[in-house]
């Protein structure tokens, strides 16, 4: 199966990933982009998100998700790219691109990938506020 799996520190080139996935033997490319969302109620205070990863375990887990997809669906191209470091509101933290001959498997596989990332890939994010930070999921941080 073609594709790429990467942890990156730069903005993600979603258009480039989609172009790379387009193939004459596929009729569907499903793409999921996770972006940093600021709850409206928090908007005054959350400034950005910051991600860290346990590498190379995180890289390998992304590849394993690709292999799981290949086992379950007729996916001909899968790319998963996760950004780490500072990610500003509205920017992409993760991009998943799946090409398949048919649209059903493309949608299902890209959905599966984001669920699996949230379960097994050793990546953590913290919300950085004007007055400190909070690790998401652990409620540990420097805010009082």
């Amino acid at each position, binding site marked *: 199966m073609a594709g790429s799996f990467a942890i990156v520190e730069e903005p993600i080139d979603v258009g480039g990933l989609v172009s790379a996935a387009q193939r004459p033997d596929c009729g569907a490319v499903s793409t999921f982009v996770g972006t940093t969302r600021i709850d409206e109620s928090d908007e005054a205070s959350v400034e950005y998100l910051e991600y860290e990863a*346990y590498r190379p375990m*995180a890289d390998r887990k992304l590849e394993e998700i690709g292999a799981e997809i290949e086992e379950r669906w007729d996916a001909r191209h899968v790319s998963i790219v996760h950004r780490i470091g500072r990610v500003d509101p509205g920017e992409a933290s993760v991009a998943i691109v799946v090409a398949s001959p048919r649209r059903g498997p493309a949608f299902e596989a890209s959905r599966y990938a984001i669920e699996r*990332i949230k379960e097994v*890939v*050793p990546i*953590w*994010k*913290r919300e950085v506020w004007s007055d400190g930070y909070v690790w998401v*999921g*652990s409620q540990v941080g420097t805010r009082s």
Partner: protein
Amino acid sequence: MTQGSIRVLFFGAAADRAGVREAEVSADVATLDELWPLVEQQHPDLSPMRGTLAFAVNGEYARGGDRVSPGDEVAVLPPVSGG
């Protein structure tokens, strides 16, 4: 790293609580369950998180009874929050 010791890595909230990103444990332990009290002794602020933590040995998820040996890398992993 000291010859024969176990290297312990901390991530995310666990690194905050431990106050360091890595530590060494050179005692003679055979499993994760045996290793943990020594880690907790060095970094008591980790105790309240214990129930939420996962572990990896040499980059693969591991459970309490799994073996650890001198030279291994053990990672202390809070609930992941990627995506």
